[in-house]
């Protein structure tokens, strides 16, 4: 238990200090801690682990269930209405989706109610490069990062019948060329500074994405797992993580097999949300379905929290409960992997923003 080392004495007592004692505390990685304690002060986590002492005067919450980091929603199109992609030209590397974001939108609130505290908002795929995604908190629409990932599409979806590129060969050539030239965002992507997310819709484009990443030293993720089952080795060798296609009720077996194969091959996975078309509640449904098929529950938990943030290039900003990080967490009646568990409270930046006494 690595968490045992976290025997910190929490800072001086203050009225805004909150201590949550939970039967199960999951930090966003590894295994859940039994009887864990979480200390929050000034919106930040100041201590987390076993045997942490509550500072005097702190508000103590005894929770007979689970506490996890706020869930991480990768690849959403929430809050941007129909302005999801600028269609005027195939390459829009400097376009930022964040400028389409309307902060007061029901979609963000729905995420929050499903326990999702941080999301990436991505421009829609279907163009070779559709711009930069944003990292946003679902409470208060706080933009954490306005230029999180460069969004690329290397699949048939990005090929148009009446505009260059009309062929997959030209599409690949185009992306190779701009990454080699290295101007602007492409240069930052090629140097590994700016993570990418590459849309792949079939085995061919999965392989192309992996080879593109390898060839140009890209880091980030592939979005699209459906056909990955046979290509795990290639994906693993590319160093990219995978944002999986959303999994929900009736999702077919191949999709589940691919997720399991990726996990077994050591690839970092997270579940794509693709909201608002796909409901945010499906994040847990997907994880549960994969667990039922045999995925390790801890990997499934991480794929909704710590690993998810990491795959989307936000590992430093979201997804885990750790000292110094924003205190974004959720109180559940049981493990979030169990769909029969209810969400009880959502806390963002050290404040309860959903559930609790209000209800």
């Amino acid at each position: 238990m690595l968490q045992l080392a976290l025997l910190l004495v929490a800072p001086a007592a203050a009225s805004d200090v909150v201590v949550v004692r939970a039967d199960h505390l999951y930090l966003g990685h590894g295994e859940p801690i039994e009887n864990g304690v979480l200390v929050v002060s000034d919106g930040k986590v100041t201590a987390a682990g076993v045997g942490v002492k509550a500072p005097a005067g702190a508000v103590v919450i005894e929770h007979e269930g689970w506490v996890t980091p706020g869930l991480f929603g990768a690849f959403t199109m929430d809050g941007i209405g129909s302005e999801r992609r600028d269609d005027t030209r195939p390459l829009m590397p400097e376009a930022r989706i964040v400028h389409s974001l309307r902060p007061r939108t029901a979609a963000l609130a729905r995420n929050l109610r499903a326990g999702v505290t941080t999301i990436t908002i991505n421009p829609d795929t279907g163009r070779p490069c559709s711009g930069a995604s944003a990292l946003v908190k679902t409470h208060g629409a706080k933009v954490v990062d306005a230029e999180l990932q460069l969004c690329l599409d290397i699949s048939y979806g990005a090929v148009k019948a009446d505009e260059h590129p009309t062929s997959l060969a030209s599409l690949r050539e185009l992306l190779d060329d701009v990454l080699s030239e290295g101007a602007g965002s492409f240069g930052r992507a090629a140097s590994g500074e700016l993570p990418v997310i590459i849309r792949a819709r079939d085995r061919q484009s999965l392989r192309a994405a992996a080879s593109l990443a390898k060839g140009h030293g890209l880091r980030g993720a592939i979005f699209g797992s459906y056909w990955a089952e046979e290509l795990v080795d290639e994906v693993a060798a590319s160093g990219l993580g995978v944002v999986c296609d959303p999994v929900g009720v009736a999702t077919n077996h191949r999709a589940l097999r691919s997720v399991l194969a990726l996990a077994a091959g050591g690839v970092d996975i997270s579940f794509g949300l693709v909201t608002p078309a796909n409901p945010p509640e499906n994040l847990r449904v997907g994880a549960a379905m994969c667990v039922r098929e045999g995925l390790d529950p801890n990997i499934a938990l991480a794929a909704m929290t710590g690993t998810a943030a990491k795959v989307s290039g936000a590992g430093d900003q979201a997804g885990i409960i750790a000292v110094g990080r924003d205190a974004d967490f959720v109180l559940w009646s049981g493990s979030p992997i169990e769909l029969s568990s209810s969400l009880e409270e959502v806390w963002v930046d050290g404040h309860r923003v959903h559930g609790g006494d209000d209800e």
Partner: protein
Amino acid sequence: MIATLSLFALSLSPVPHPAPRADKLVVYAERAYTAPGVVVTDALITIQDGKITHVRGGARASSADLRATCVTAGLVDMGFRYSSNQNTVEQSSEVTAAARIAPALDLHARGWERALRQGITTVAAFPVDRNVVGGMGAVLKTGGEPTLEARLVRADAFLRGSMGSSPSSGNRPSGTRPTNFYARRPTTRMGVEWEWRKAFYDAWQEESRGDADRPGRAELLRALSGETPVFIQAWATQDIRTAVFLAEEMAAEGMGTMRLIIGSGAEAWREPDLLVRSKAAVCLPPLPAAGRTTENAFMSMDTAAKLYEAGIPVALSAHSGYGSGNTLAEQAVYARRGGLPFDAALTAVTTMPARLLGVSDRVGTIDLGQDADLVLWNGTPFEFTTRPVGVVLDGTPLVGGETDR
């Protein structure tokens, strides 16, 4: 008499055989048609590391891993349609000689497996014929690891383009609102031919003038000089004539002697003299039931025989792969029924396409050092009553048919 496939009998499914290709494999056949005109009886073919290392006749079957009544080299379909998808061709320009087919290939598509199952081990792959000059085609194996590295036999094997109506249909005549590039593309056959001629002249003149290089020029020049063959789809008589006249005009202008291959040349039989004169080769499309093909061209059972008798190099094709109900072996049977001798039929589905594609050093015959691509038949090949029952690709048995009684 009936073929027995001892190894396949155990594992009949089309799954990759687990045996690593480095393993030695010995194949026995009552008759091995090692090359057109050469039959080895009681043949034992030894394969090591994916290559044929030994062929000997008068042997006994007992030491073989696989046994069959007859064996031929893997079939070669140079008219393979792996996809009907337009995203294999870059249409933002009518002439894209520099375009490569390889990145557009979906090596996981079922078409490859379907081709392999019917004995086709090597195919030519090229862009869909929607452009005038589509780009460079490649030669690939139909099975093995689904990576380009593993399957590519020859990259840039030929320049592929099209005559006739396929590059012009669907385009809009000028005068309509130029909303996209379909408004500036050729709308007639003469427009298509003009694009071809212009492409070659421009490449030639730019080169002579020493202009700065641009994509596609080198490919066009190599095609002009005959270094790489030019594979032009031309179904109907008029389009075949146009292709030949184009090549002859370039030669007359001193720009080089093209190696012309007419693709889908259903009506080539109408112009034997012209084809002989220009030394063009013909790849035939699959035989239609009632005589008429695409572009309303006419073809019959004896078309292959007629071309063969005229001395024209002829390859057969099933346009196998995507959505085709035809098999290449069946095309050979029809050609035989139309009068093509057995050896010529074997040539037309093995050595001829291999030669035209420039890969005869690796495939097309069963010979020392050749790739170990074999088709195992349950009787004499190219008969209605026989079929491929097994396929060996690069020394690995990949396909076994259902067991025969």
